[in-house]
Each structure stands twice: as C-alpha cells, then as structure tokens.
C-alpha cells in the first residue's frame, strides 16, 4: 500500500510528466509548419492507435489496482526471505511478476529484505521479474501479437533467474555473512 510519503503534493512534480506532452506538442507544431497535411495525418494515426488499445489500457490498470490491493507485499517479501538456491530464484521470479507498485515502494521493500539477510541474487531476480508485470501481457499482445508477447515474457523471466545467479556471484553473496 502506498504510504503517506508517496502523496507529497508538489505542484511542479504533478506537472512534470506533462513536460513530455508539451515537448511532443512542440514537435507537432514544427511538423505542422513544414507540412500541415502530414502533421494532421500523424495526429490521426496517434488518436486511432490510442483509441484502438484504450479498452486494454483501462483493463490493465484496473487489474493492476486489484493486484496492488489484494497481494500482500509484506507476506510475499517474508516468503522470499527464507529460501535459498535455485528454488529461491524461481520463487523470486514468480513473486516479482505479481509484485505491483511504483519504484519508491518496491526499492525500499527490497532494501528491507536485503537488510534482513536476503541474498543479492534473490533481490536481483525479483527486481528483474518485477519489471515484467504479468497484467501488462494483454497490452503487449495487443500491439505485438501473443506469440511475441509470451515469448518475450518467458525469456525475460528465464533471464531474471540467470541475472540473479550472476549478480549473486559478482556481489559475493556467499562471503557476506556479517550483518
């Protein structure tokens, strides 16, 4: 759940994402000066592709909301903490896909796990799998086809496990016994 610190209302922060929109708008303005028809065509393509996937986008965010509320992050984290070896990494990969939340919630949660002795391998695998976001799959499939979306997701999860193992070595998990 999002803590009170996440709600810091800052005007400039709230408007920050719209800077990108303004930038794209400026590009459109330049494009319209060069060729009004083609700029209009671009806007039409933009609106059409947006409307085409709008239902999926709405559904995906509704699903993300459910996962965020009904998946107990703390319990998931505790579960991750008491495993080791390959099973630990597989669990981490699975857990990561259903972990939903913004960076400023997930990073500190992972840090807490780390402070309680969870290996860097498990942290890395969970973080990598967290980036996969299973509820997003229909959206990716909508744009790129199911075959592409599923293949990419499965490969990314396998890579998450491999990355965990590699990071475990590089960060010397086995040598870090002191706390």
């Amino acid at each position, binding site marked *: 759940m999002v803590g009170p610190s996440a709600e810091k209302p800052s005007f400039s922060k709230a408007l920050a994402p719209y800077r990108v929109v303004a930038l*794209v*708008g400026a590009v459109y303005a330049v494009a319209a000066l060069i060729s009004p028809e083609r700029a209009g065509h671009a806007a039409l*393509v933009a609106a059409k592709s947006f409307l085409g996937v709008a*239902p999926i986008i709405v*559904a995906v965010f509704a699903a993300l909301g459910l996962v965020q509320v009904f998946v107990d992050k703390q319990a998931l984290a505790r579960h991750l903490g008491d495993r080791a070896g390959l099973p630990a990494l597989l669990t981490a990969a699975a857990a990561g896909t259903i972990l939903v939340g913004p*960076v400023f919630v997930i990073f500190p949660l992972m840090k807490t796990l780390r402070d309680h002795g969870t290996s860097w391998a498990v942290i890395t695998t969970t973080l990598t799998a967290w980036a996969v976001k299973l509820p997003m799959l229909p959206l990716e499939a909508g744009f790129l086809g199911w075959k592409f979306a599923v293949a990419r997701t499965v490969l990314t999860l396998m890579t998450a496990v491999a990355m965990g193992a590699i990071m475990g070595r590089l960060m010397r998990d086995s040598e870090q016994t002191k706390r």
Partner: protein
Amino acid sequence: MDPTGIIYLIGVALAYAFFWRRSPGRASKALAGGSKSFTGMLPTFIAVFGLVGLFETFIPPALIERLMGSSSGALSLLVGTALGTVATGPPAGAYPIAATLLKGGAWAPAVAAFIVSWILVGFVSLPMESRVFGVKFAVLRNGISILASMVIGVLMGVVL
C-alpha cells in the same frame, strides 16, 4: 474495435465482482489505486502515441529497415538496445513504439531488445537505485541488463 480489449475488460470486471463480494472496501480501494496509476500514466500515453503518429508519418520505413532491419543483424540489435536504454518511461509506453518499429520493417529480435532494455535499464532511476542498494549493485545490475536485452533479442530470433 479490437475484441481482445473487450474480452480483457470483461475478465477484469468479473474479477472485481468476485473481490467486491469478498471485500467491497478493498475492491473500491483497488479501483481507486488503478485509476490513480492510470491518471499518472496518462501524460506518458499521450506523448508516446503522439510520437507514434509522428514516426509513422515522417520516418521513412527505409530508414528503420536500414538501422534495425534483419539484414543489419548485430547493428540492429545494438540500435534497438541503445534506443531502449536511452528512452525512459513506463513499460506500457514501449509497446506502441515497438509496434511502429516492427511495422516499419525492424527485425523482431531488435524490437525485443528495445523493449527489454527500455524496461530493465533505467538511467533516470539509477541515482535512486544507487542510493538504496549502493552504486556497485546499481551499475552492475543495469550493465548486465543491457547485455541481457541483447541476449533475449537473439533468443527471440531463435524462438519466433
């Protein structure tokens, strides 16, 4: 209208109905959380789709083909990974751009590398990641993620 979206909407609505019966309070909290993330993401979506329109109208497919086409092989993988590394934004923003690249004649492995590096490599979140986990972890994880993007791209070529 694309049926996938409608089917998925119905599925999610059923899920909500199920959770609503178990706990109306938490279900409405979920809905509120979902709409909050959606409004937070909306500017990004507007910008990304705006870019997609510009790409499809002004960037000649021949250019995409030359930089990211299958005949360019390793170069197209590098270009895809580099684009994804430099670009930042929520994962959902990567898909429309990836679809445009694919339509323009880009090689599927290069497009996959683009998506993976977009999602896994975060130059913008690097300072925060360093602060939370330490510089060594952050740099190593992002570095390995860049390599992983290319590996996943190559494997995609094998699978598809």
